[in-house]
């Protein structure tokens, strides 16, 4: 190993170390700044309590419920849609349609979230209000539609990658056995790509959980546990954006770091799960 190579290696290694320190330091910052809250309340109280800062209650349960509800419902909507789109792209429709669809889905990954929110405010909120005569129109449902629309393209691309990774011999064998394209898709492609599908699902869940602007602009932001889709709700992310305004020394301010920590832990769990699943797929295919 030449001296130059060692030098280059050292420089690159230092850069890598710096980059790898970032996710850790984010977690440490959250921990330190949430400490005032953690030292005066127990974690279980904070995670299961209600939000009433004037009465000295700093629980973030309403926000967690709203975040979970919104993320899982938008996933429930966009999963079948993505599966269908990925199926079309995979070959259930002639290339004349499949190729433009793939292009469109790729471009949709570039739609800014703030534009989804903007359109939601001026198109969806009035519509929801007129259709359902409930609330102000700012509710979970109004946030759900654009959010599911936002995560669908990336999920579709992820799924079509998973489909494309299905080994060709299996497909050919199925075709030789007389399976038509739909049968091959349902009985061969989907089962053998199931790990990839699960990984895409988990990552999309993390992404839906982490979206701020759509929830902030459309969900109404009332800090209560929502009891229906036409209720106003505040997600963890919107809570951070709203309460950043609080006094720096206050416990309210500390609570947003707790929210940040919850989001951090959940999304990194999602990333770890997805990585595990993909690792397992790689091993199987080898």
């Amino acid at each position, binding site marked *: 190993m030449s001296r130059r190579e060692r030098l280059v290696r050292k420089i690159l290694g230092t850069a890598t170390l710096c980059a790898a320190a970032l996710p850790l330091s984010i977690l440490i910052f959250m921990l330190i700044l949430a400490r005032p809250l953690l030292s005066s309340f127990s974690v279980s109280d904070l995670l299961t309590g209600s939000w009433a800062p*004037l009465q000295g209650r700093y629980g973030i349960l309403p926000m967690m419920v709203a975040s979970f509800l919104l993320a899982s419902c938008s996933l429930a909507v966009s999963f079948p849609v993505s599966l269908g789109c990925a199926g079309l792209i995979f070959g259930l429709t002639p290339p004349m349609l499949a190729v433009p669809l793939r292009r469109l889905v790729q471009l949709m990954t570039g739609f800014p979230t703030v534009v989804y929110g903007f359109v939601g405010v001026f198109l969806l909120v009035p519509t929801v209000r007129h259709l359902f005569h409930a609330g*102000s129109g700012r509710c979970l449902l109004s946030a759900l539609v654009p959010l599911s629309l936002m995560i669908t393209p990336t999920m579709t691309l992820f799924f079509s990658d998973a489909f494309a990774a299905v080994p060709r011999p299996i497909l050919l064998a199925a075709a030789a056995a007389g399976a038509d394209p739909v049968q091959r898709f349902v009985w061969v492609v989907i089962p053998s790509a199931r790990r990839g599908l699960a990984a895409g699902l988990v990552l999309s869940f993390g992404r839906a959980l982490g979206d701020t602007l759509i929830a902030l602009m459309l969900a*109404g*932001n009332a*800090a209560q546990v929502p009891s229906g889709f036409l209720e*106003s709700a505040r997600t963890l992310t919107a809570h951070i954006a709203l309460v950043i305004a*609080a006094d*720096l020394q206050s416990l309210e301010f500390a609570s947003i770091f707790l929210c940040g920590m919850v989001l951090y832990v959940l999304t990194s769990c999602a990333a770890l799960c997805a990585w595990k699943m993909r690792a397992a797929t790689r091993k199987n295919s080898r």
Partner: protein
Amino acid sequence: MAYRRGFLFICVLSCILAVTTGVHAGGYDAFKGLEGTLRISGGTAHIPVMKALAREVMTRYPAIRITIAGGGSGVGIKQVGEGLVDIGNSGRRPTDQEISAYGLRLHRWAVDGVAAVVHPENPVRSLTSRQVQDIFAGRVTNWKEVGGPDRAIHVFTRDEASGTRHVFWKKALGKGAIRKDADVVPSNGAMKTAVATDPAAIGYISVGYVDETVQALALDGVEPSLENVRSGRYPVARGLYSNTKGQPSALAQAFLDLLFAPEGRRIIASKGYIPADR
């Protein structure tokens, strides 16, 4: 030919110089020779005035940069106290605790009312304070109970950092409860937008923000007009404050002086507020 063009150029230049120096009004002279960045944040009711003033100052003195952010009164007080901005605006008087903890200096430059507002299509034009309290607490949930159409009431409120909320809560709601499912909007402008687009809505905004898109309600028979706010007959009123931490910088001082100078007062009045004396 070249000589004549040069002559023409000098003529034009001197004309421009003469005009620009002639235009200088007294209140803006204080900025002469100053430079740097003045950071302002806080109350959203202040923003229209701040923007107009910043525009006047920055057009005249390009070396000065004024940045304006919203966030609400709580943000203004907190950020100026922490030294993150030079001037922190608040739509309420900072508490004594805040003043002493941060060493704040208050500058109250306008008086403003906070009015309950509804959609213009709503026939309700006046409410008693009792009715307002009942509506915001959630004891009255339909407009027909207060003389309107048979429609569920949508209550809009502001976040806890809002000075508008603080004043309305203290003086109109008598520190009563605000229903938990009320929709939270982040600013006066947002409140106006929300109410203007929802026929069943009720909210509250700074009087300076009231225009034809929303209908301001009389409270116990008193219209929230500028005269009634000025005379004190309309009770839900407040000062608009700009706060500094200790002695303001030269730039901040010039800006605060401008708020009390005739030019500043004209702009304040044009935005729908009542200019106050120092």
